[in-house]
């Protein structure tokens, strides 16, 4: 039993954090929002750092790392409100495709993902739209139980406008064919949903912390009544309360990445949805009218958090699922049950 990341994992996290601080600073996010939302140059650098291949098996040219390695990276992507499609790809699509890496056509997609030559988008059948469908070469889509890997040429997209100016979502029309079926194993979409929920939770954690940090920074400098507003206890307590919520959402996310069990995943998802929503509403309050503008960076983070809260199972979905797993008569929930089945 050791609930800690390795030195290497933390070091890699720090490298990615520094990289994103330089290449995906709020000013650059703003720039992307003013343009078409994506920076091919930044994406190339993500590829160079090995991030697109992070979870791709070594045989397909990736680093072959697991979800525990990746979860910290996803958190950083959230912290920076990274516009490019990275997390959905390395945290949902690739772990799924890797299960079928023994098939040559899937292996070649994985290889192309690792080198940055191809992008894969994925949408759960429960969600109406697919993120970054337009930029993808391949889409992973569902019909009933079946999971399909569909080439971009075979889909028709209807772009939609998200509240998040950096999100690129689209409705997808396509025809399922035998040649596109990846698997029709029952329950596979449930497992994919868990991967999606972990991806959203990890990003939400980073987003929430980013919002608190922005608000704290503002509170240190903005003066009213002759002193920084951060010296007022109401402001302090607002932010401290959010920090508590973030801190106690953190371990559940890491555990979910380790176990990938539905109960752990739903816990992480709900805790982060709540913490991020609280971070957003608190941060805007601390910023005052500034927070209600497009001029201050806060809104990029708030809007991402709002958008991510609804996909890959929203709060109600996960609560209902949790209720079935925790409140049923045979649920194992005692003090000794937390790590019992790992």
């Amino acid at each position: 039993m050791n609930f800690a990341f390795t030195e290497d994992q933390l070091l890699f996290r720090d490298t990615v954090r520094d990289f994103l601080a330089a290449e995906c600073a709020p000013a650059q996010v703003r720039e992307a929002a003013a343009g078409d939302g994506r920076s091919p140059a930044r994406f190339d650098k993500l590829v160079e750092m090995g991030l697109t291949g992070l979870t791709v098996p070594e045989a397909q040219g990736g680093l072959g790392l697991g979800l525990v390695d990746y979860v910290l990276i996803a958190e950083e992507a959230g912290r920076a409100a990274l516009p490019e499609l990275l997390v959905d790809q390395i945290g949902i699509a690739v772990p799924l495709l890797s299960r079928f890496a023994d098939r040559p056509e899937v292996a070649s997609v994985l290889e192309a993902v690792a080198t940055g030559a191809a992008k894969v988008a994925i949408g759960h059948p429960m969600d109406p739209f697919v993120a970054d469908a337009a930029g993808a070469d391949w889409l992973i889509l569902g019909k009933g139980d079946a999971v399909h890997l569909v080439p971009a040429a075979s889909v028709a997209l209807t772009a939609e406008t998200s509240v998040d100016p950096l999100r690129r979502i689209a409705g997808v029309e396509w025809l399922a064919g035998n040649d596109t079926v990846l698997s029709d194993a029952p329950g596979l979409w449930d497992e994919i949903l868990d991967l999606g929920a972990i991806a959203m939770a990890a990003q939400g954690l980073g987003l929430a912390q980013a919002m608190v940090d922005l608000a704290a920074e503002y509170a240190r400098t903005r003066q009213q009544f002759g002193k920084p507003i951060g010296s007022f206890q109401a402001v302090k307590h607002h932010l401290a309360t959010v920090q508590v919520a973030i801190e106690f959402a953190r371990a559940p996310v890491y555990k979910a990445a380790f176990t990938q069990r539905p109960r752990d995943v739903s816990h992480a998802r709900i805790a982060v949805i709540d913490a991020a929503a609280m971070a957003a509403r608190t941060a805007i309050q601390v910023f005052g009218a500034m927070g209600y503008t497009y001029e201050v960076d806060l809104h990029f983070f708030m809007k991402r958090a709002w958008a991510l809260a609804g996909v890959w199972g929203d709060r109600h979905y996960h609560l209902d699922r949790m209720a079935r797993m925790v409140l049923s008569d045979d649920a194992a929930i005692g003090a000794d049950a937390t790590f019992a089945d790992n």
Partner: protein
Amino acid sequence: MDLRYTDKQNAFRAEVRAWMQANVPTTALKSYDTAEGFEEHRQWERVLNSGRFGMVTWPEALGGRGADLIEWLIFEEEYYRAGAPGRVNQNGIFLLGPTLMEYGTPEQKARFLPRMAAGDDIWAQGWSEPGAGSDMAAIRTKAILDGDHYVINGQKTWSTRAVFADWCFGLFRTDPESSRHHGMSFILVPLDTPGITRRPIPQLDGEPGFAELFFDDVRVPVENRLGGEGQGWHIAMATAGFERGLMLRSPARFQETARRLVDLYRRNESHVAPGVRDQVLKAWMDAEAYCLNTYMTASRLIAGGKIGQEASLNKIFWSELDRAMHETALSILGARGELMASGIPEAGEIARWLKGFMFSLAGPIYAGANEIQRNIIAERLLQLPR
């Protein structure tokens, strides 16, 4: 990261479980806030010690098992799972113990720790004074050096279980000219020393859980000082760190409450209001989150880390969780929720929720009020100006 227990850890759990099954009293002890209940609980501490379960993390020579913090968590899980009695010596074993381990001389460790583990010395804390609650640096009780003794004069209050305890540890002003955080020392005082008067204060439930302590020329040998003279504040902060950060409230306690809450919900599901389900789920998740967070802290400490300001996050979380769980339980019980005693079958369970609810209201006050913890988080973690 590896969230699986080792074979050794599983074996340890099995050993604790079997021992608890054989030794935990089958009928509940009387409240340790009564004279009789206090001695019953002391007796239980002796039984625990006979199984070398008094404080498993201590070295064997001092009455422990040299267990690490993960094993301590396992021990606690089995302890609460077995419904074992409350620890009457929690101030000693969970707070003073670790502090002695860090700051005590070898003589002090040998003198105090084995007796503490054995339940021979039950400890009370003496920080608060009438004029020094949240503002602990306002402490005025003096301990003035006279030869090889300190002479203590002043008053402490809200000292939990000090009505019946054998010793108290606390902060005293050893430099009469000093103010605020300076000039205080951490001193251990036998409560039967001449010159000490104890006045019981009944708590919310009517039992004398607090004592007010009056010191009138109380002479305590210098070797009862823990750490250097004037170092008291620094050491007290370490004790507070153990208290808030890890030891005082082990996760198993709240997970057990959450389990009881889920159980109560299941039995009443057909007639509770719809929103209650989500409150129950939230309680269960939060208790779980507290556990996970503690395992992360334990792993970090085992790797050589230290408890820092994040202890304040902890303290807020568990105290507000405990209150929320009890409020939810009472809302499930509805009109039966006022029953302190009754002939109906669930009477014992209801009274337990009610007493737990009352005590949960103290959680956000003791161990540093939550407002103060929020100040600490804002100023030290988020670096907001004072």
